[in-house]
């Protein structure tokens, strides 16, 4: 998901409350919409992003960091330094893991930029090997995300019908 969970909840609640419910003429439909609104307001403080996939992401990123360290060992100029603060609390929440995933992604972006800029100075094929390793890890994550994503309703969204 691209947006934060909090913003999504707030946005859906606001849309129902201020833009949808006032336009529903049928009382029965309106009461159902109020039911949905009530549920959302009560769900909001009780849910967070699923922890399992986030932890899987970070575990894969850390394995990749180790691989990159091997691939860039003694490279000149030196490859970007990996984040050092990668320890998580004993019982992490999504709020702990998400920033870690983003820090590691930031590091991967820096490594990609470094490999591209130094392609000619690295051993033959090394920059491509680094890129392929990062792409492989990212592809696994994107495909998992895609499996969780419902087919888009762009037609309905565009037409409103």
């Amino acid at each position, binding site marked *: *998901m*691209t*947006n*934060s969970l909090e*913003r*999504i909840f707030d*946005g*859906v609640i*606001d*849309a129902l409350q201020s833009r949808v419910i006032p336009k529903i003429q049928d009382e029965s439909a309106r009461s159902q919409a109020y039911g949905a609104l009530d549920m959302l307001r009560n769900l909001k403080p009780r849910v967070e992003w699923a922890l399992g996939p986030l932890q899987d992401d970070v575990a894969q990123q850390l394995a990749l960091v180790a691989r990159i360290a091997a691939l860039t060992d003694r490279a000149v100029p030196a490859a970007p330094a990996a984040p050092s603060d990668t320890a998580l609390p004993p019982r992490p929440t999504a709020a702990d893991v998400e920033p870690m995933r*983003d820090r590691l*992604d*930031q590091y*991967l*972006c820096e490594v*990609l*930029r470094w490999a*591209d800029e130094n392609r000619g100075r690295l051993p033959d094929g090394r920059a491509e090997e680094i*890129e392929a390793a*990062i*792409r492989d890890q*990212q*592809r696994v994550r*994107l*495909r998992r*995300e*895609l499996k969780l*994503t419902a087919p*888009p*309703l*762009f*037609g309905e*969204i*565009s*037409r*409103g019908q």
Partner: protein
Amino acid sequence: MESSALDGEAVAKNLAEFLRRQTGSEVAVSGLRRYTVGFSWITYGFEAAWRDSTGPRRENLILRLGPPKGLFAPYHAFPQFAALKALEGSAVPVPRAYWYSEELDAFGAPFFICEKVKGEAPLPWVAEGREAFPAATREALAEQFVAALAAIHRFEWRGTPLETLGRGVDEASAATREIASWEKLLERWAFRPYPMLEWAISWLKAHRPVAPRVSLVHGDYRTGNFLESEGRITAILDWELVHLGDPLEDLGWVCMRSFRGRSPYMCHLIERPRLYERYEKLSGIPVSPAAVTFYEAFGTFKLAVIHVGAARCFEDGRFKDLRLAALGVHLPRLILQIEATIEGKT
């Protein structure tokens, strides 16, 4: 979500006042309707009635506003207005453009007013495995679709106000400038890092083609952005991303997976070999398949950046339209499509 200047009643009142100043006559505005299409500019249809030297006039018109907190804000009305105005009477069917303003006094937003052309905008999103058009309609529309694109690219923009849409761009710099512009937008909008997009930028920079010529580029040429009536394309719409650049950029956009799903027809209209053949014949511009693939990948990158921007706009609360958050959900699909396009797997 929007300033009060953009609510229906205020829009009608301000429209009447603006039109009164332009026509020198009292103008009755009726039937104001906001369309749901589009995620960026806000579009209203309305009827205006006034009296001029020839007698009473009644016109169906379109008002397009660039909302101050919208996706690509701050907006400018001039590029779209200039493109419509320049192409009036050419082989490209466009609505007649009447007025535009960059000033915020009327609606709190830049805007332009143009003719409302008869027709419906067919959408590119259909259920997988289904045809968007019956075969005969598809063939008729395909020919007009390619002919209009060729006419845009053949259009002599030099010596017209369109020159300002890409000062200094030449065949060698066209792709570089576009990549830089969209990379900057990604930097502005992203609220987390995207390694695959970072890699895509490197690939695009390393594979940028030299343009066969510098043309007027529509920037969002596809099914969904033209009007059709009884098998005839009546208008090419949505010139928001118009610029000067490589004509093959539009051809790559037409070929994107996002606008055809698994259909063999680009934009649900025409098969790729036929598209290249008809385009070359009608435009006189040679098609380099490698350049089209480049622009297909670049177009998918642009679309991914737009999705990031939509999510950002929603996250910041600038625009509360839930559809923006819904776009953001589908970012992984686009990022995978960029990679598949680069690897020739589309």
